[in-house]
Every structure is written in structure tokens, then in C-alpha cells.
């Protein structure tokens, strides 16, 4: 980017900053809202002066800034699941006030649904299309194999589809799986799943909260078209040493945390590992020596999370986050053939938080992230290795400036250096007779500069507007994007709000995958040559009603999204170790629209939500590059298109020991491609004659509707140590044993006596029957 461009950009951004308003003597209070028992920051908590109708919400670090008139003021800090903390403050100057909120109940604290942000806050905020989860919510709900999965919990929200039975992939408002930006403490995670998407990489013990933005994207986010999944890790217990964990059917978890010396902060170390391999090795051992037995390959995955929160001084804090996750697949045969396949993410970030004054603070984050897969084989003296990776080094700085009681300004910049190893092949022999390889690498630099202003124009009208300027460079190819963002809320009454938003997004890196699932061998590719940045725009409007004395929030949102330069691939595209990979791309457009209805209840003994989405998603790839395009250039539904999606989630606290939970999911059938025709190919010699399927159209067939009921029970038992907690969490996945379709294929029916084909039939495959599970969780 040229200097002139940066100067123009800076000028444009500062034009957005509003002029100060100095009408009366006002002072600012600021500080953190934390949980009294754990010291954890509480994002989304409210600090308000009810008599003045003024208030502020804590940011994702639990920090708030509130400007009030001078004099005595009654201020209340509140957060759902915690006791309100009123405090009288006499404002004669700017001052710092921290709030430490006690939990609303000291029994079964883990099983109270803790939504971040009250319904009142959700009604009032300008941010729409945001789903916020805490680990506590996810931990309560029944889960596949008892494995708590934050991403699967997000799939229960309206506007979010999964990629298939049991998978943790997210398809948000018609976006594809690679159009989600996954962040862990501001560092990007490129592959958020284990075991081909069946489990997410986010260990629930190490995660504090997850925010999913489906639209109305704030200006500080960029780089993906369809969603932002912002995961915040827990900082650890600041007061005392703690140990917690869980024993499940397929994995166990252990977390250690505690204060730093001199109470200068806290630390957390958390790990999780599956033990499929422990069982499969025993099975292999029992069958050792049997001629017809094929050993089961070893497979396991693990996650390691670490976080340190260190107070550098009165105005400075340092947060260091680390994550290492790996899937390990190994196979060794008696014939000397070894096969190893490992993949995973490595993420590290260091964030420096500096408070200049009560109105202005900054977070500066340096991060590194790497995703890689590595396949290695050996046979006799020969070896083979295939690998691919993407590595990012990034630096970002984010300023929050509370200009006055009407304007809250955010501005900042990001810079990322990408390295794409799209294919690294090595083959060799011990005697030197074989030595070949190929190594295809690209680099790219991505930059972003943003500014936004949250403007409270009146008691009824609040606006959030901004712009993000993004740029990408790879070799001699340069791209620049201007991304305006805007959202607004208008309060019709104290219990009714109208909201609207618009966002334009650019995506400069692309996932090379022509499968319908998230596979570890998917690779990332930069915008370069013929591969231009993807672009999307989304408009959304909604209305929210607070009902039942504030106990229910009913929200209805309508969205329309349209996207250009969408990517797919030619039939038979060679995606592995291809130096001309961009020649395999096809480009098209996509559009999606829908309506999401959402009712939620967050307080009381019974809580939960009901979500319903009516949506359409389409894509079109016209004839190009010597092909007829996709589906002969006609629009088609991608396989994640669903017409109807209904979720009902309920949690009921039966007594101080028992919590009952359940979730019901219904979705229209998945769009899929079936062969319409077939022909017989004999090949050069007639011995290999067999039918070849003909696929003239894409995704024209719909699988049967998907529905499933999961049930759960959390039973709190006597803790191992005084002051601790422990419970058994029982889950029944697919309680009524519905045979949901996973895929359909056509099969031959043969006459057993003659071995000739007599007819063809369609077969439906289901993945998971009813699966009960139990997990023991402890904390002390």
C-alpha cells in the first residue's frame, strides 16, 4: 500500500470522528466488571444510572466507560446470573470504579444458564445478528458422546446450519464453511475441527465465551464473508489454585489454574485427549495373528490451552494465549508399510492492554497461527511425504475511545503476513535412487484499517457506523477494498426496538476444497492471478419485543446477502501439489435470504430458546474456462441450503441437585446430487464392465427431513473436597433413535446364484443411532 493511500485512508477515517459535545459538566467512570468468585471478566455486563436512563455495556474484556453528570449518582452493575451491585458515586472528577459481582445463587452455580447480556441489553444494543454463548450454556446441553461442543451449540441458533450429521462446521446465512472467521483471543484458527469435523477444537474448560456475528459486522472484523466466531479464553482463577476436569466416554479433560505470585495476575493450563486408540490397540492385540483381521489404525486428538494474565502496572495488562491441537492417525502393517497422518493448529497471541485514561484505552496484539497437515508413508527403503500449511504473523491495535456520553469510537489497524504452503511433496529412497520433490509456496500481506462510532443520537435512536479499508498483496497482485458497515436501533417503546444493518465484506484467502465437509487436507490459497477476492454484502432488518415482564425476548430478523467471485472448482480438478492451481478455479455468484424468528428466556427455573429459520441459498457458476460451468451454468442450491430449520432448547432446574435439559432439531432435507442415469463401460478388456453414474445436475435431490431429540440430566453430587463441585452429566443423543439420512447411494442387487445384476436400489445411510453417554465433571 502506498503512503498516499494510507494518508487518504487516515483522513477518511478521522472524518468519521464526531465533534465533542460539551453541554454540561460531566465526568467519566470506567473500570472492569468481574465475577467475585473467580475474578473473570464479564463481557456484556451492564453498568447503568437508571434514574438518568444512561448506561454502558462492558466490552469483551469486561471493561466499561460511562459518562455521567457531576454530583451524586446511583449506579448499578448487573449481569444475568449475578446479583445486581448498586453503588452511590459522587462525581467530582473522572474516576475508576470496578465491580465484583456475586453469583445469584451459590448452589449449582454451574447449572444456571448464564447468557452474556440480559434480554434488556439485547433489546437496546445496536448490534444485531449476534449470538453469544458462555461455556456454561454449552456444558448443560446434551452432547454427542457427552463431548461438549461450543460450535454445535451455535448450530442450534437460527441462521446457522451444520455441514451434516454430527459435524461442527458452520454455514451461516448461506455462507460456506470457509467464510467464517474463527478467532481465539484475536488469533485466527484455520481449521476449527477434529476428526473430519465431528468435534470442534475448542476445549470447553478453557473457553469463557463465544460470540457469533451473523451480520451487522463491526468494523474491527474483516477477512471473511459470512460470520465471525470470536472465542475468548478464560484467564484463570486470580484468587486460588484450582483444578477441574472431566472423564467422558471418549476423552478426558484436566485444567489447572491459579494466581501469579504477588497476585499480579492469573494463569490457566488446560488439556484434553481422546482415547479411541487405547481401545483399538487392545482390540488389535486380541486379534493379533488372525489372517483375516485388518488392524484398526491408531487415532486420537488432543488440545492444549494455556493463558497467562499479567498485570504490568496500574494501567497495563499483558495477556498471553497459546493453543496447540493435533489429530494423529497412524497405521503400521506387517508388510512394512507405515502410514502416518497428522494435522492441527498452533496458535499464540500476546495482547497488551493499556489504559491511557478513563476515556481511552488500547489493545495491541501480536499473534502467530499455523495450520498444517503432514502425511508420511514408508515402504521398505522408500519414503513419501506430503504436507501443506498456512502460517500467519499478525499485528493489530484496537483503540476504544469514549468521547462523551453520546459517542463511543473504535479505531485500529491490522497487518498480517500470510505464508501459504499449498503443496510440499517429498519422495526418497535410502539408497539415493529416488529423490524428488515439489514445493509450492506463496506469500501475501493483508492489511486493514478501521474506524467506527457508536452514536446515541437520542434516547430512541442509536447508530453504529464505520468503515474498514482492507488490502491484500501477493506478489505483484494488489487488491483494495472499502467496506462500509452500519447498524442502527430505534426504540419504538421501552419494550420494542427496530434494528437494521448493512455490511460489506472482502475475503482474500480461500479454502481449496471441493468436498462437502471440512477435511484436514483442505488447503488455503491467496488472492492472486485470476483468483480475485471474494466479496459479499448483507442487509438485515429486525424487530425485538420484550415480553412477559422482561422475561422473554422475541426477535425477528430478515436478511438478504449477495456475494460475488464465489469459488468452486472444475470437475476433476487437481487440487494436490498443483503449481497451476488457480486454473482449476471456477467463479460465480451467490445469494441468500431468509427470515429468523427467535424467542429466548434467560431467567427463572426454566430457560431456553426457540428458533425458526426460513431461508433460501443459491449459487451460480456460468460457462467459463472451457467448461459449461456448474450445473450447466444454471443456479443451484448448495448442499447446506435448508428451507426450514426449527430448534427448541429447554433447560429446567428441578431442584438444587438436578437440572434437566433437552433440545429438538428439525430441518428440511439436505440438497444432494444423485446420478440420474448410468451407462455400462467395458473398458479395453471386457472383464471390468460396470455401471458408470451420470450426474447431469447438481443438488437437485432432497434427502428426507432431519429431526432429532437430545435429552440430558445434570446431577450434582457431593464434591471430592469441601468447596469444590462435581456432577454427573448424562446425555442421550438422538433419544427416539431417528434414522436421519446422512447420504444416499445407489447399489446393485445381484442374483446370488448367478452373480448377475438383477436391479438397482437406493440405500440411505444414517450415522448415529441413539447414543447414551455419561461424563463426570469435577472442580476444586
Amino acid at each position, binding site marked *: 500500500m502506498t503512503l498516499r493511500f494510507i494518508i487518504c485512508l487516515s483522513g477518511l477515517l478521522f472524518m468519521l470522528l464526531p465533534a465533542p459535545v460539551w453541554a454540561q459538566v460531566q465526568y467519566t467512570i470506567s473500570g472492569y466488571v468481574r465475577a467475585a468468585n473467580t475474578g473473570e471478566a464479564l463481557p456484556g455486563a451492564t453498568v447503568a444510572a437508571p434514574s438518568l436512563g444512561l448506561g454502558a455495556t462492558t466490552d469483551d474484556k469486561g471493561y466499561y466507560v460511562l459518562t455521567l453528570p457531576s454530583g451524586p449518582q446511583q449506579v448499578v452493575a448487573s449481569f444475568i446470573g449475578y446479583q445486581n451491585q448498586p453503588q452511590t458515586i459522587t462525581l467530582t472528577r473522572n474516576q475508576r470504579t470496578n465491580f465484583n459481582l456475586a453469583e445469584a445463587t451459590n448452589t449449582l452455580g454451574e447449572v444456571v444458564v448464564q447468557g452474556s447480556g440480559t434480554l434488556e441489553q439485547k433489546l437496546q444494543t445496536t448490534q444485531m445478528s449476534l449470538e453469544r454463548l458462555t461455556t456454561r450454556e454449552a456444558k448443560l446441553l446434551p452432547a454427542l458422546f457427552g463431548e461438549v461442543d461450543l460450535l454445535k451449540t451455535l448450530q442450534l441458533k437460527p441462521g446457522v446450519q451444520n455441514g451434516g450429521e454430527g459435524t461442527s462446521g458452520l454455514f451461516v446465512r448461506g455462507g460456506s464453511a470457509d467464510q467464517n472467521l474463527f478467532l481465539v483471543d484475536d488469533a485466527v484458527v484455520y481449521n476449527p475441527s477434529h476428526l*473430519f469435523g465431528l468435534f470442534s477444537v475448542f476445549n470447553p474448560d478453557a473457553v469463557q465465551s463465544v460470540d457469533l456475528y451473523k451480520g451487522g459486522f463491526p468494523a474491527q472484523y474483516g477477512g471473511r464473508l459470512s460470520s465471525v466466531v470470536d472465542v475468548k479464553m478464560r484467564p484463570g482463577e486470580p484468587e486460588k489454585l484450582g483444578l477441574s476436569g472431566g472423564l467422558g466416554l471418549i476423552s478426558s479433560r484436566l485444567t489447572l489454574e491459579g494466581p501469579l505470585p504477588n497476585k499480579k495476575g492469573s494463569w490457566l493450563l488446560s488439556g484434553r485427549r481422546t482415547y479411541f486408540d487405547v481401545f483399538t490397540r487392545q482390540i488389535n492385540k486380541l486379534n493379533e495373528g488372525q489372517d483375516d483381521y485388518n488392524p484398526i489404525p491408531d487415532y486420537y486428538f488432543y488440545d492444549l490451552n494455556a493463558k497467562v494474565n499479567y498485570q504490568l502496572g496500574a494501567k497495563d495488562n499483558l495477556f498471553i494465549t497459546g493453543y496447540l491441537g493435533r489429530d494423529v492417525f497412524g497405521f503400521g502393517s*506387517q508388510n512394512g508399510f507405515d502410514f502416518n497422518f497428522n494435522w492441527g493448529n498452533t496458535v499464540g497471541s500476546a495482547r497488551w492492554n493499556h489504559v491511557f485514561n478513563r476515556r481511552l484505552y488500547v489493545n495491541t496484539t501480536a499473534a502467530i497461527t499455523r495450520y498444517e497437515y503432514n502425511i508420511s508413508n514408508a515402504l521398505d527403503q522408500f519414503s513419501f511425504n506430503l504436507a501443506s500449511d498456512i502460517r500467519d504473523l499478525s499485528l493489530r491495535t484496537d483503540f476504544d475511545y469514549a468521547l462523551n456520553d453520546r459517542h463511543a469510537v473504535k479505531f485500529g489497524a491490522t497487518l498480517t503476513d500470510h505464508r501459504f504452503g499449498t503443496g510440499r511433496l517429498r519422495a526418497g529412497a535410502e539408497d539415493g535412487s529416488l529423490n524428488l520433490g515439489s514445493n509450492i509456496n506463496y506469500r501475501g500481506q493483508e492489511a486493514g484499517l478501521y474506524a467506527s462510532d457508536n452514536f446515541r443520537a437520542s434516547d430512541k435512536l442509536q447508530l453504529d457506523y464505520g468503515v474498514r479499508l482492507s488490502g491484500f498483496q501477493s506478489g505483484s497482485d494488489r487488491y483494495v477494498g472499502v467496506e462500509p458497515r452500519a447498524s442502527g436501533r430505534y426504540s419504538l417503546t421501552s419494550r420494542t426496538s427496530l434494528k437494521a444493518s448493512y455490511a460489506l465484506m472482502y475475503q482474500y484467502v480461500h479454502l481449496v476444497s471441493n468436498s462437502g465437509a471440512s477435511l484436514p487436507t483442505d488447503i488455503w490459497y491467496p488472492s492472486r492471478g485470476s483468483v480475485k477476492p471474494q466479496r459479499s454484502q448483507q442487509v438485515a432488518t429486525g424487530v425485538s419485543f420484550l415480553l412477559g415482564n422482561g422475561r422473554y425476548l422475541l426477535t425477528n430478523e430478515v436478511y438478504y446477502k449477495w456475494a460475488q467471485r464465489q469459488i468452486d472448482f472444475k470437475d476433476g480438478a487437481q487440487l494436490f501439489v498443483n503449481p497451476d492451481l488457480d486454473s482449476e478455479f471456477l467463479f460465480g455468484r451467490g445469494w441468500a435470504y431468509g427470515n429468523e424468528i427467535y424467542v429466548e428466556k434467560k431467567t427463572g427455573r426454566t430457560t431456553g430458546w426457540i428458533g425458526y429459520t426460513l431461508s433460501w441459498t443459491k449459487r451460480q457458476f456460468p460457462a467459463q474456462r472451457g467448461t459449461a460451468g456448474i450445473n450447466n451454468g444454471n443456479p443451484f442450491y448448495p448442499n447446506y441450503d435448508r428451507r426450514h430449520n426449527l430448534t427448541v432448547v429447554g433447560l429446567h432446574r428441578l431442584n438444587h441437585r438436578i437440572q434437566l435439559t433437552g433440545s429438538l432439531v428439525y430441518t428440511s432435507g439436505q440438497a444432494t446430487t444423485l446420478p440420474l442415469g448410468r451407462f455400462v463401460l467395458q473398458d*479395453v*478388456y*471386457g472383464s471390468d464392465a460396470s455401471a458408470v453414474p451420470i450426474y447431469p445436475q447438481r443438488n437437485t435431490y432432497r434427502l428426507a427431513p432431519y429431526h432429532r431429540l437430545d435429552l440430558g440430566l445434570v446431577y450434582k453430587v457431593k464434591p471430592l473436597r469441601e468447596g469444590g463441585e462435581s456432577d454427573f452429566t448424562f446425555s442421550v443423543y438422538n433419544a427416539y433413535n431417528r434414522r436421519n439420512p446422512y447420504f444416499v447411494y445407489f447399489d446393485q442387487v445381484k442374483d446370488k446364484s448367478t452373480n448377475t445384476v438383477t436391479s438397482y436400489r437406493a440405500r440411505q445411510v*444414517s450415522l448415529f443411532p441413539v447414543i447414551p453417554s455419561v461424563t463426570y465433571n469435577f472442580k476444586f
Partner: protein
Amino acid sequence: MLTRSIFQTLAPMITRRSLGYTLAGVLLASCGLQKDIDVELPAYPAQLVVECYLEPNRVPRMSVTESGSYLAEPTPRIPQDVKVVLTLPSGRHDTLDFKPGINLATGKAYTHIGRSRISASPGQTFQLEAYDTQGRRVTGSATMPAIVPIDKVEWKFNDLSGEQRKAYVTTQFQDPGNTVDFYRFQIHKSTVATDPEVEYTIEDRLNNGTNYTLGTSYEFQTNDTLFVTLYHLNQPYFQFLQSVEEARNANGNPFAQPSAVRSTVEGGIGVFTVLSYQRQRIIVR
């Protein structure tokens, strides 16, 4: 020595398609949650399907059939009114006779047969035209690739004994450096008229012009008689073979993206090509 054996024996295992296929197989086997369902497919208009592999000094044979709806009866659909004209490199037109039969040497069925052997040499181009009374017309053109000779075929046994003692086989050849080349490698046991024990297709895009060695895993026993064949393909035929494999794999693999068959002919489905190959017979001892 095993320049390509590892690459070509093992690389297919890690491709996206086979990875998904393997996983799908595991899922199918482990869960056993399958049932028959009724599927209503939209009407599918039948197309002419041609299959013709010319060889030097052989009488040309060709099969012309029809494609059909996938769930239709598996009865062969042989149109009776198709005329086939083969145009030789000299420009002479040979009409193939409609005489359905079985080639006893290969067990392969054909519908049309030429009247005399043809001569063909690398670089020569043949034309094909097949049409019926319904107005369907299939055309194709095929140029014979150069023959790429096999330099050496070797094998090596493992250190095991009895039934476990097995050998791998390697085949060496020199890839021409000035062209983009495609190959099909096959090993048949006992006779070429059976399913091959080993088969894969490769292209030389990563190591053009180098010495290639294709190989197998340990899978052959003492005294096995093997026919090792190296086909040198032109690109359309290579793409046809790949697309057929992809189409077959996509049926039953939830991770595969179904793809259309890329025929070497226009106006219908199928393949028209001139075979160019070398074959060696070995006995593994």
C-alpha cells in the same frame, strides 16, 4: 529405483476423494445404519454411448449402447439403427458393420466391427461418426500417442516366509521431456482378460522428462505370472478415465463432489481412442 512407486502406490490414499471414500467405508461398516428407500428420479433422456479402442493391426470393434435411468432395469440397451463410419488417416471412410458379438480373446462385447485390420502409427489421427434414425449423432477424433517403452521390470520379496512372503514389482520408463504425458499402468495376473491386480493413471506434470519408476506394494507371490502394461494416453482419454473413476467413487461417498464424465466424443457419451502401449510378461520367483 522406485522413483514413482511410493508416489503412485501411496499418493492415491491421501487424495481427498480416497480419504473421504475410506472414511465413508469405515462409517458404513461400523454403523450399519442402512436401509432401502424409494427415490423418484426425474426423467433422464437416453444418450448414445460409444466405446472404441483402436489398435494397430487389429480389426476395429466398437460398442454402441444407450444410457438409461439409474434405477431402470439392468437390461442392455442396444440401439439397432446406428451407423458407424470410421475415417482413417488416409481419408478413407470405413463403415463398420452392425454385427453384435463377443470377442473371444477378451470376452468383450461389441456391436459394430470393421471389415479389415487397420494400420496405425503414432501421430496419425482417426475420425469416428455414429448416428441413428432419431437424429442422434456422436463424433470423435483420436490421435495415436507415441509408444513409451518399458525400460525395466523388477521385483523384490520381503523377508517373511510362507504365505506372508510377497514381492513388490517396479517398472521403469523414461518420460519424454518435451510433452505433457499421461499414463495408465496395469498389472494383470495370469491373463489380461481379468481384472487388473494393480491399476492407476498418472501424469508427468510434476517431474516432466525424468526417469519414472512405477510400483506396487508387497502383493505378489512366488511363481505368479504377471502382465505389466504401460499405456501412453492422450489427454482426453486420461481425463475420461479419471472422470469415470470420480463418478463411480462419488456414488456412496458423502465427501465427494459428483462430477460429470468427460467423454472424448461429442454428441453422446463415451470414448474413442487409439491405444499405445507396451507390455511385458514376467514370472515372479
